[in-house]
Each structure stands twice: as structure tokens, then as C-alpha cells.
């Protein structure tokens, strides 16, 4: 074999290997094997939840770097975040450990923060937030399950069994003991409804006959008419009272007019005089008063008149109600 061609082949072969290795690394992680790019941030956590070196850092779901190192510091864990150089992270961005799948792989999520604010620089510390991890959620679910179990158990106990028999047992007992009675009641009910359906009896007629309904409607209309009349009457009465108050008419004059009052006084004086004369038995009227026989006959006459007026007074309302009642029933 020609020595030179052998050398060339070996050289080409080696270069091919180097090129393939370079392509592999380049496509896998942007060639970060050879040189470290970007800047480093520090994130402090109470619990790292299995976040490890090489895990992704994502800003709103986009990969912006990787965990460079994790270390224990006083009473907390610190993760060094290698961030890509062209990614700007504002000072109020918050980092939290998120789960990318239920299988348990974690990544570090960073929020956007306020745009235009101060940016974090190399070796700055980023704010962090505690998130519930899967095991906590699952243990809480377990607690919930236990409580649900308890509640369902109690419901079951109160319904089905327990001391003194549960609700179901009692209901069952009630139904079995009163079985015949219930059957009778139900058959009676059937009879009644059948009768109603056939229009038998008052209730049946009420339900099935339209004439009754029409009558009812008519009487209601009449009641309405009566109420309207009563309203007109009340309006008239009100008008009279206002007239009296305004001093109109005889009664108004009597109550509110000064001259009338003074003439009334004169009349009263005159009356006093007359009554004095009467008391002393002077003149025809005096005799009339002092004589008993005349008084007695006048009294009996007055009684009769009274009774007559009473009758007249009652007659009005009774008639009105009577009319209303008759038209109703």
C-alpha cells in the first residue's frame, strides 16, 4: 500500500470523526461543551425538589439556560443559573421550580417581570417563589379522600343501619305497618278523583261546569260597580265637608261666621227668657210644659217617631248588603 495515500486516508478519517463529534455537540446543546457563554444568576430555595445540574431554565416556556450548579448555603439551597447571553431578565422576575411531566423531571421557570425595568447582572440574585410539588398535592388529595370516605360512611350509616335502625329501616317499617290503610286511602282518592272527573258533586261541577264560572264573573262585576258607587258617595261627602270648612252654606255660616255667632247669642238670650217664662208656667207653652198629661202624650208620640226613624236608618245599608249577597249566592 502506498504510504502517502494511507496517511491521507487516516487523516481524512480522523477529521471526519472530529467533524461528526463537533456537529453532535453543536446540535445537542449549542456547543456549550467547549466554552461557557452568558451570565450566571443565583437563586435561593428552601427545597430544590430534585432540581439538578443541567436541568433547563425556561422563561415563559422557552429555554433560556441551564442549571450550572447546586449547593447548600446557610439554611437554604442555592442554584447557579447559567443564562444565555442574549436573554435579559428584569430584576422583578420570579423563579420557581416547575414540573415538566408527571414522571418527575423538573425545570426552573422564570416569569417575564416588568419590561423596561432594571436588568439582572452576573452573580445577581433572582427572586424565588415556592410552588407545590406533586407529592404535596397527592398527599393533600389523600387527606381529602379520607375525609370523603368518612362522610360517605356516616351518610351510609344514618341511612342504612346503626343503633335504632336507619332512615331506610324506619321508612320501610312505616310503609309495611300502614300498608292496608295506605291502600284504602289511595283507593278512596281514586274514587274522589274519578267523581270529580265525571262532574259529580259540587266540586265536580265546580271543576267541570262553565256556567258557574260565568256567574261568578258577573257577580264580581256587580261588586265592582257597588264599590265604585260607594266611592262617588264618599267624594260627595268630602265635598260637603270642604264647603262647611270654607264657610259656605248654613252649617258653614253657623260654625265660622262671627256675625252669625253674635246673633246666635242674642237668640240664646231670648231663648233663656222664654224658658224662664216657660218654667214659671206662663202662656200657652208654659202650661204645656207644666201640664203632665200633655207631656205623656207627647212622649208616646215621640217614641213612635223614634222607632220609625230607626227603621228608616237601618233600611239603607241592609238593602245594599242584601242586594250584594243575593247576587253573590
Amino acid at each position, binding site marked *: *500500500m502506498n*504510504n502517502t495515500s*494511507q*496517511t491521507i*486516508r*487516516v487523516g481524512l*478519517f*480522523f477529521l*471526519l*470523526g*472530529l467533524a*461528526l*463529534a463537533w456537529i*453532535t*455537540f453543536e*446540535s*445537542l*446543546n449549542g456547543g*456549550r*461543551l467547549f466554552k461557557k457563554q452568558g451570565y450566571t444568576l443565583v437563586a435561593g430555595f428552601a427545597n430544590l425538589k430534585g432540581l439538578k445540574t*443541567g436541568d433547563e431554565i425556561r422563561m415563559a416556556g422557552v429555554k433560556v439556560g441551564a442549571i450550572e450548579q447546586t449547593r447548600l448555603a446557610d439554611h437554604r439551597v442555592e442554584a447557579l443559573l447559567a443564562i444565555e447571553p442574549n436573554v435579559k431578565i428584569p430584576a422583578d422576575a420570579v423563579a420557581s421550580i416547575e414540573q415538566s411531566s408527571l414522571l418527575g423531571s423538573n425545570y426552573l421557570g422564570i416569569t417575564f417581570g416588568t419590561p423596561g425595568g432594571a436588568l439582572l447582572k452576573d452573580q445577581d440574585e433572582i427572586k424565588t417563589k415556592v410552588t407545590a410539588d406533586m407529592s404535596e398535592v397527592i398527599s393533600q388529595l389523600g387527606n381529602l379522600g379520607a375525609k370523603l370516605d368518612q362522610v360517605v360512611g356516616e351518610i351510609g350509616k344514618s341511612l342504612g343501619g346503626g343503633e335504632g335502625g336507619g332512615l331506610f329501616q324506619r321508612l320501610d317499617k312505616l310503609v309495611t305497618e300502614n300498608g292496608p290503610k295506605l291502600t284504602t286511602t289511595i283507593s278512596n282518592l281514586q274514587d274522589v278523583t274519578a267523581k270529580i272527573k265525571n262532574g259529580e258533586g259540587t266540586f265536580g261541577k265546580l271543576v267541570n261546569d262553565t256556567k258557574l264560572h260565568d256567574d261568578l264573573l258577573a257577580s264580581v262585576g256587580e261588586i265592582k260597580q257597588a264599590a265604585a258607587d260607594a266611592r262617588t258617595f264618599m267624594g260627595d261627602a268630602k265635598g260637603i265637608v270642604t264647603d262647611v270648612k270654607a264657610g259656605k252654606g248654613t252649617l258653614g255660616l253657623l260654625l265660622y261666621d262671627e256675625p252669625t255667632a253674635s246673633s246666635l247669642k242674642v237668640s240664646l238670650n231670648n231663648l233663656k227668657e222664654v224658658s224662664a217664662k216657660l218654667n214659671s208656667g206662663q202662656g200657652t207653652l208654659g202650661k204645656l210644659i207644666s201640664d203632665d198629661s200633655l207631656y205623656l202624650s207627647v212622649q208616646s208620640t215621640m217614641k213612635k217617631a223614634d222607632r220609625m226613624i230607626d227603621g228608616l236608618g237601618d233600611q239603607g245599608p241592609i238593602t245594599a248588603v242584601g242586594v250584594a249577597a243575593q247576587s253573590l249566592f
Partner: protein
Amino acid sequence: MNHLSAIVGHIGGTLLLLVRTLKFIGTLPRQWARFIEQCYLIGYTSLPIVTILSFFIGSVLALQSGYSMENFGAKQFIGTLVGLTMARELGPVMVAILIAGRVGSAITAELASMKVYQEIDALTTMNIPPERMLVLPRLAAITVMMPVLAIIANLCGWYGGALVCEYTHTISVDSEAYFTALKEYMKPHDVTDGLIKAEVFGFVIVLVCCYIGLNTRGGPREIGASVTKAVVSSLILILVLDYFVTKALLMS
């Protein structure tokens, strides 16, 4: 007991051979032609078989994992599985087994016949240590060639898997999804771990084969016995070392 002491003796002899060889490392530029020749024999001529073997290993891996992962709906992770398995385990180990069978046996056969036909003794008489002229170029060549073979094996395996995933109708994961999944969970150190493993395996294979070849005693029958012994020891060492190297790399 005799057997155990013999094994310990072989380990010690191998290490002493390594130390004696490394003493001559400064002479490597002067043996450049010999080094290139060994590179050609070890690396370049192994290329076709490494390519074919790793391509089909990647394909079969994709086929089998596609078949079994379909049962629980994890087909989109075939890329991850094939990628990681090829880079971390199957690529280096398969290349090492190939090298043990193809190169290790040749080295042992050559050195054993030289020893049996007293060529080694002649070299020693001429004050040419066999470690310098015979062992050092081979060790240097395998050190340079092994990562190259391993990375070729990785890529061929990945593309074999991608091809099977795309064109097997029972799997039908397109190659874009396959390589996305592959990149998603693979980190550069997975590949470097594989390359380190390949390097370790290759180095150990050549060293052991040289030792066994140089320590052959007797006639032509012993040459064959030596070759068998060399290949068997190489395979055992590959699989035993695989565990410990992997563990050491995972812990680091």
C-alpha cells in the same frame, strides 16, 4: 489458589507492560509512519463494519422499543431511548466488541507468531524494545481512533433508528419528532461519557491483546490459544469495565 495468583500475575504483567510502553512515549514522533499504519489498520479499515453494525443496532433498537412502548403510549420517547442508549451504552460497547474481534485478535496473532518465531528475541538482541516498536504505535492509534469510531457508531445508530421510526407503519414517528425527543433529553455529557467509555475499552483491549501476544510460549498451536484467550479476556473486560466506568461517570 494457583489460578487466582495467575490472574493477579497477569494483571500486574499488563500494568508493567503499560508502564514500560509509556516510558517510550517521547519516541512516537519518530515512529510516525508506523503510527499512521496502525491508525489505518485499526480505524479506517474498521469503518464499514462499524457503520453497518451500528446502523442496524439503532434500527433494531427503534423497532423493539417502538413495539414495546406502544403499549403504554410512549412512542414519542423512542428518539430519547435510542439516542441515549446508543450514545451511552450500545455505541461504545458494540464498537469495543468489534475492535476486540477484528483488531485485538489480529494484534495477538501477529505478536504471538513474532514471539513464537523468535522475532521478538531478535528485536531485543538488537536493543529494540518490543514495547517501543510494537505496543506503543498500536496503543497510540487506538487512543486516537476509538472516539472517531464511537461517534460514527452513535450517528449511524441514531439515523438507523430515525429511518425505522419514519418508515415502519406500526411506529410511524416522523424523524423530526424523533430528533426533537432525542435532543430534548440528551446533554453533551451523555455523548462525552460514551466517548470516554469507548476510549477506555479500546485502550484496555489493545493492552491486553499485546500482553497476551507477547507472553505466548510454545509453537503454532499456542498462537491460536493465545488469540482465543485474548479475545475472551477482552470481551470479559469490556463488560466488567462497562459497569464500573458507567458508574464512575454517572457519579461524577
